């Protein structure tokens, strides 16, 4: 059934379709309408979930650790400061190998207070062990909830799906809402091998010393990499069932490109238009959409970007003292390519500053016109 809904409602629909058993949440703009909608959905009897109204995001994630260890499909949502407050427990959830799904609405981090789009909140959680997926449209948001549980429950790692504040969270788009029967076939009930069960007593999260902690993290790392293989199976199964497909790192008009621009989130949609326009002008430019950011799809990035002369990486996030995080990671991956492309890191749109087609066109032309980046990173549109 097609409906015109906001990104936050798309998430709520995804959670309903996945028959999540426990939801915990603490309000924060622009996430709040996800859990408000979920409490309506539960109130209407469309989802039989326990909804825990906790006292903070730290407790929200801790409650997820409890419910997921008890063997129940668990969901929470947050944004910005809330995600940062969860940080300790994010590490915990991943280390405990719990297949929790969290949707994070990308919002700038304070101070100064700013509630608008910025990906610094989630990129700064990159080392927590969570799988990270960046979405571009409300349809992708809904579908990603369903795919995330499938992925998480197979590999036993938590998944964070993220999308831009307001540009998606509060903007309506046409979304095809799958039938729950189809989702049931795609995503069977969660039946974990290890869970709290008094008839089969176990201890979770105990002490491990230097003799085996190292191996334990090695296994976690290796399992995280398995997400990459498993993702393609999930993706094709999803495609067979629902007719939609989301590449781990989608290529857009990259054939014979002499320049590829890498984007994540809603800037991607803007960039598609610009790429079309520049192609019409005869400029051989393409785009790679960064969808999965953890684990890093190293082989894929190398294949797409490794042989192009120029790569522009657009970051709506900043690690002060370094620059944009995506650029940094793309650079690290491409260091191993034989013909290292020239990389143009660009920081844009922090704190919700609009990034228009003219901006993207300007950025691409800047990279086309210069043999080397003028600034690393380049701050595009900085007010003097």
């Amino acid at each position, binding site marked *: 059934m097609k409906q015109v809904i906001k990104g936050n409602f798309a998430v709520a629909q995804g959670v309903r379709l996945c028959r999540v058993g426990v939801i915990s*949440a*603490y*309000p*924060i*703009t622009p996430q*709040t*309408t996800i*859990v*408000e909608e979920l*409490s*309506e959905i539960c*109130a209407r009897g469309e989802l039989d979930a*326990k*909804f825990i*109204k906790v*006292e*903070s*995001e730290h407790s929200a994630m801790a409650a997820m650790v409890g419910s997921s260890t008890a063997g129940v499909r668990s969901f929470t949502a947050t944004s910005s*400061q809330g995600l940062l*407050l969860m940080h300790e427990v994010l590490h915990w959830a991943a280390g405990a190998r719990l297949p929790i799904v969290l949707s994070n609405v990308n919002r700038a981090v*304070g*101070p100064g*207070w700013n509630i608008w789009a910025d990906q610094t909140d989630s990129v700064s959680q990159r080392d927590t062990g969570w799988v990270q997926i960046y979405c571009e449209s409300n349809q992708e948001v809904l579908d990603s909830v369903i795919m995330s549980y499938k992925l998480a429950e197979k590999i036993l790692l938590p998944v964070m799906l993220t999308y831009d504040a307001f540009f998606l969270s509060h903007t309506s788009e046409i979304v095809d809402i799958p039938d729950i029967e189809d989702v049931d076939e795609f995503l069977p009930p969660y039946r974990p091998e290890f869970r709290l069960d008094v008839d089969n007593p176990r201890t979770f999260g105990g002490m491990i010393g230097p003799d085996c902690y190292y191996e334990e993290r090695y296994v976690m790392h290796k399992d995280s990499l398995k997400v990459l293989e498993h993702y393609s199976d999930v993706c094709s199964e999803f495609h067979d069932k629902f007719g939609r497909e989301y590449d781990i790192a989608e290529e857009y008009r990259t054939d014979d490109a002499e320049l590829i621009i890498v984007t994540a989130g809603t800037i991607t949609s803007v960039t598609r238009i610009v790429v079309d326009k520049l192609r019409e002008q005869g400029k051989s430019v393409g785009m790679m959409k960064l969808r999965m950011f953890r684990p890093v799809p190293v082989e894929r990035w190398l294949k797409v970007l490794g042989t192009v002369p120029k790569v522009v990486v657009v970051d709506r996030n900043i690690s002060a003292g370094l620059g944009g995080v995506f650029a940094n990671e793309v650079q690290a991956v491409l260091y191993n390519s034989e013909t290292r492309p020239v990389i143009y890191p660009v920081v844009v749109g922090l704190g919700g500053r609009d990034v228009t087609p003219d901006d993207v066109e300007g950025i691409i032309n800047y990279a086309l016109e210069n043999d080397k980046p003028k600034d690393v990173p380049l701050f595009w549109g900085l007010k003097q």
Partner: protein
Amino acid sequence: MKQTFKRPKALVDIPFHFCPGCHHGIIHRLVAECIDFYGLREKTIGVASVGCSVFLYDYFNADVVEAPHGRAAAVATGVKRASPDNFVFTYQGDGDLAAIGTAEIIHAANRGERITVIFVNNTVFGMTGGQMAPTTMSGQETTTTPFGRDLETNGFPIKMSELLTELPGSTFVARAAVNNPKNLMKAKKLLKRAFEVQTNGEGFSFVEFLSACPTNWKMTPKQATERVQEEMIPYFPLGVFKGGQE
């Protein structure tokens, strides 16, 4: 002609952003009147919380530092320890103080920090659009309790004043309301005492204000003010719990 009523010097001359019928504006004014009364304007440092009162710095003619959500009492602790001669107050909503910041307020009180806490209890998370807070009343409808707060699954409306009274570290704890002139006059008296507790170096002082949020209660200002009287005061009784006479 003698002027008998004017804007306190501690308030900047700009309109509040609060909704019509919101009590935050009245409480802001009371705090400003006390700052003027004790001549503290040049010595005051306010610690603002996250909630509808986040723009404290726009309204107070004093230094203001913003705290992350829930951390005001801890930030104020740092401010006061570093500048013991300043008058330091926090201004926090019930989501801020009684949900995410519960640990900070309990420990600041328990350590007897020489700060003054203004706690504005409107039984909802106001700024984020009216979700259930720990203070939400039994049966109260909010955006996250569409059928009303169910004590079975959501627990009980938390009484912060009573809780902090029990801590040996707190010096003055009181609950006030500004829903009618009589309560307002009483509230001002309590607030003055709370100021003195800090300026005399006596210890930690705390005043809880019952406050109307007509917008999220989906009421007119008049109905909201009546609700304070009829529903809130019976459950959250007014008065001094510790440290003085009314």
